[in-house]
């Protein structure tokens, strides 16, 4: 788990996570990127604020929860903070397991929980220069809610 202003390189992160490992049969990655539009409005840039200390503990907690639910060989969350522009990477989730299903499910779970629990806040700057805090989306709460049912243990 890392919180950083710098960009990340997906291939390098996969290589580091899997180096020397012959027990990993599946790697799933999710990369969240900044779009140039949101809710029908053009967006020129964005600032990501977070709660240092709590962010790290929430990301560690959600990663531990994923490790407890699925047989993961490794996982990684990288989340950027600070000033971002359209096309920039925002967040990376990598999950690795013996078989694909655990890695697919855990990656979705990590993103859904991160979006509703990790203390990050986006402030967008519109094409007209006006800044506005992004509202939370009910669909993100619904996506996280589906994980409340007991998880299936699969290989």
């Amino acid at each position: 788990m890392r919180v950083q202003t710098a960009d990340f390189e997906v291939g390098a992160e996969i290589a580091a996570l899997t180096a020397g490992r012959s027990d990993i049969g599946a790697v799933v990655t999710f990369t969240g990127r900044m779009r140039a539009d949101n809710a029908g409005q053009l967006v020129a840039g964005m600032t990501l604020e977070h709660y240092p200390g709590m962010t790290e503990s929430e990301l560690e907690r959600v990663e531990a929860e994923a490790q407890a639910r699925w047989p993961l060989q490794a996982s990684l969350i990288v989340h950027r903070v600070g000033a971002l522009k359209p096309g920039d990477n925002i967040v990376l989730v990598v999950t690795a397991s013996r078989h694909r299903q655990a890695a697919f499910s855990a990656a979705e779970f990590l993103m859904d929980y991160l979006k509703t629990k990790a203390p990050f806040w986006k402030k967008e700057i519109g094409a007209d220069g006006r800044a506005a805090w992004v509202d939370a989306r009910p669909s993100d709460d619904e996506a996280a809610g589906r994980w409340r049912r007991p998880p299936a243990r699969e290989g």
Partner: protein
Amino acid sequence: MRVKLLYFAWVREKTGKAEEHVDLPAGIKTVAELIAWLQQQGPEYAEAFRRSEVIRAAIDRTHAPPGASIAGASEIAFFPPVTGG
């Protein structure tokens, strides 16, 4: 009880400060009671905490619902619903 209060995103902008140390009067026992007290601390606080139903809180860096006890807390944070990812 002396606690450190932290504010993030538009709660920080509306209160005009990122953090402060406050001496809470006796009798404030929950997050909801603390919000109600903060609403009385000036116009900027009244505005920041006006939509108290959308404000989220964390006690010592753990999410806390409105009814959570603040007894023994050293750091309490207030912020809008999170929008990372």
